[in-house]
C-alpha cells in the first residue's frame, strides 16, 4: 500500500513523502490528482495543533474541556468533548499545550547534535525517532551503513516495541479495573525498562544510535542476560494474556469500543497496530532487510480489543525475534568505534522507522554540515485524529479504552 507520511514545502515547491513497499521516497507535486490520492493530505500539510476544531450545538449540549491539568490524561494536552451528559457527540484535541518547537531547534545544528533533539520529541519512541532521523541524514549525505548497525537498530526497535506494548496493555487493564493483571503487566514493563538500561545504558534506549553507526553495542554477557529475560517476559505475558481474554467483563469493555473500518483507517492515514487491527497489512516491516522475517499481525474487527490483540501478538513475536537474533549475534558482531563518514556535506533526504505505534518519518536538508530544514511526521499526529473520531458517539466510560488503545502521545503529536 501507498502511505503518505508527510508533506514538505521547500522554496515554494511541494513534495510528498510517500512510503511504498517499505521504501520512503520524495515526489514533487505536479498535479492536483497526486494530492487527491490521499484523503488526509490537508491534515499533514497544515499540521494544525487544534485537531477537529469544530463546535457542536443543540439542546443541552455543552463543551466539556478535559485537560491540560487532569489526572486522567497525564500529559499536557486537552480534549474538547461536546456532550449533553453521558454521550460524547464530538471530540476535538488541542495539542498546543505540549508544542515545544523541536524541529525549529534542529536548525543550524550539526546532525550529531540534532539526534538528541529527535529523541526528545517523544522519549518512549526515542529510538524510532533517532533511527528515522539518522536514516534521513544518511540518505541526504549518501552514507552507506554497515549491516551490523542495521541489525542492531532492528533489534533495539523491537525492544522499544516490547515495553511500549506492555505499557499500553497495562493501561487498558488498569482502566478496566483489572488490578491483578495490570500489576503483573506493570512489573513486566519495569523489567523491560531495566533490561533496556543493561543493554544500552538508558531505560528509554536513548543515546545509543548515532549518524552512521552506534555509540556502543552490548557485551556478550548482556546479550545472554537479554535472551533469558525476554524469554521470561514472553512466557509470563502469554500466560497473563491468555488468562485475561477469558474474562468476559474485561473483554466486554474493549469489544466494539472505538471501531474503525479499514477504509476509514486508510482514509485517516493510520499506520502501525491501529491500521493492522482493521485487517490492513502495511509494509513497515520491509523498511529495512531483516535476517529473520517478522510476521505482519492483523485483526479484522478494528476496535480497541483488536488493537490490543495485535499489540499482544506483536509483543510475543518481538521477544522471539530478539532472542533468535541474539543467539546468532556472533555472525554480525562489529566494532562500534568504526563510524561511516559522510560522502557529502550537503543534500536532502528522508528516512522512516517502524515505531511501536506506526511510521515515523523525517525529512532533512543539510548545507555545509548544518541542518537547514527538518520536519518530523509522527504516528501520534494522525493517531490523535483517529482517536478523536473514534470517541464520537461513545459514552465517557469508554474514553480510556478508546484513547489508550491507539498508543498515541501528546509529546509525539505536538513535537
Amino acid at each position, binding site marked *: 500500500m501507498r502511505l503518505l507520511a508527510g508533506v514538505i514545502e521547500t522554496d515554494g515547491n511541494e513534495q510528498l513523502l510517500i512510503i511504498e513497499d517499505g521504501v520512503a521516497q520524495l515526489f514533487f507535486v505536479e498535479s492536483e490528482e497526486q494530492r487527491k490520492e490521499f484523503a488526509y493530505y490537508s491534515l499533514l500539510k497544515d499540521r494544525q495543533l487544534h485537531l477537529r476544531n469544530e463546535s457542536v450545538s443543540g439542546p443541552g449540549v455543552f463543551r466539556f474541556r478535559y485537560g491540560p491539568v487532569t*489526572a486522567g490524561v*497525564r500529559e499536557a494536552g486537552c480534549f474538547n468533548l461536546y456532550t449533553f451528559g453521558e454521550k460524547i457527540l464530538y471530540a476535538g484535541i488541542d495539542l498546543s499545550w505540549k508544542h*515545544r518547537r523541536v524541529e525549529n531547534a534542529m536548525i543550524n545544528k550539526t546532525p550529531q547534535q540534532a539526534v538528541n533533539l529527535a529523541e526528545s520529541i*517523544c*522519549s518512549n519512541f526515542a529510538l524510532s525517532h533517532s533511527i528515522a532521523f539518522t536514516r534521513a541524514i544518511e540518505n541526504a549525505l549518501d552514507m552507506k551503513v554497515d549491516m551490523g548497525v542495521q541489525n542492531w537498530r532492528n533489534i533495539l526497535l523491537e525492544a522499544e516495541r516490547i515495553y511500549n506494548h506492555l505499557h499500553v496493555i497495562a493501561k487498558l487493564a488498569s482502566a478496566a479495573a483489572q488490578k491483578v493483571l495490570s500489576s503483573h503487566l506493570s512489573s513486566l514493563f519495569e523489567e523491560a525498562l531495566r533490561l533496556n538500561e543493561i543493554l544500552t545504558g538508558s531505560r*528509554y534506549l536513548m543515546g545509543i544510535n548515532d549518524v552512521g553507526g552506534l555509540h556502543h553495542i552490548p557485551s556478550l554477557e548482556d546479550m545472554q542476560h537479554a535472551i533469558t529475560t525476554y524469554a521470561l517476559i514472553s512466557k509470563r505475558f502469554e500466560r497473563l494474556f491468555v488468562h485475561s481474554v477469558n474474562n468476559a467483563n474485561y473483554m466486554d469493555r474493549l469489544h466494539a469500543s472505538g471501531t474503525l473500518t479499514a477504509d476509514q483507517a486508510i482514509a485517516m492515514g493510520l499506520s502501525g497496530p491501529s491500521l493492522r487491527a482493521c485487517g490492513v497489512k502495511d509494509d513497515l516491516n520491509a523498511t529495512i532487510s531483516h535476517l529473520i522475517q517478522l510476521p505482519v499481525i492483523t485483526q479484522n474487527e478494528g476496535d480497541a480489543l483488536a488493537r490490543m490483540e495485535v499489540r499482544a501478538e506483536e509483543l510475543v513475536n518481538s521477544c522471539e525475534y530478539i532472542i533468535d537474533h541474539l543467539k546468532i549475534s556472533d555472525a554480525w558482531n562489529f566494532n562500534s568505534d568504526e563510524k561511516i563518514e559522510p560522502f557529502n556535506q550537503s543534500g536532502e533526504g528522508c528516512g522512516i522507522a517502524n515505531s511501536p505505534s506506526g511510521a515515523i518519518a523525517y525529512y532533512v536538508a543539510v548545507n555545509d554540515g548544518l541542518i537547514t530544514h527538518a520536519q518530523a511526521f509522527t504516528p501520534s499526529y494522525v493517531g490523535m485524529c483517529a482517536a478523536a473520531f473514534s470517541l464520537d458517539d461513545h459514552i465517557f466510560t469508554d474514553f480510556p479504552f478508546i484513547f489508550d488503545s491507539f498508543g498515541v502521545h501528546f509529546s509525539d503529536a505536538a513535537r
Partner: protein
Amino acid sequence: MLKWWPLFGIRRHLTEKRAYKSPINIQSHYGSIFQRSLFVYILDVGSSNALNFEISALESPQYNIHRFGIFLTDSPRHADVLLILGRPTEVMLAPMNETLNQLPEPYYVITIDDSCDALMMSPYPEMKHHVAQLKGVPSPSEILGLLLAISKSKRIVL
C-alpha cells in the same frame, strides 16, 4: 476452567526489599507530618514523556509505593507534594500557577527538568516550598528515594 485472578497475585512476590536513596538532600520545613501518608499530584508541563513513563514504572509492584504510605492523587487539592514533570511550555505556565494556587498548605514542590538545552522552554517561576530541582530522567528508585526523604517515613524495608 477459569482460574481466580488473585491466584496470580499471591503466587508471586514482586515487591523488592531494598533501600531507596534520595539523589539530593532535602531541606524540609514541616518536620515529619507526612510520615504516615504522602499524597503526590503529578503535573506534566512539557516533558518528553520519559518522566510520565517513569511515574508509570514507579506504580509497578517492584516499588509498591503504598507500603510507605505514598499515593498518587487525582486532585491538587488533596496533594502534599506537587511533582512537576518537564520545563513548562509558554502556554502551560498559567495552568501550572493555577495548580499551585489550589494546593493546600503545607505542601512541597518538586520539579524534574528533562528538556534538551537547545529547546527554548520557559524557566520555572518562583515557587513557594520548591524543595527539589532534578535534571534529566531520574529512575523510579531515585524518585521514590526523594519522596521517602520528604515524608521521613520510618517504614523503609531493608
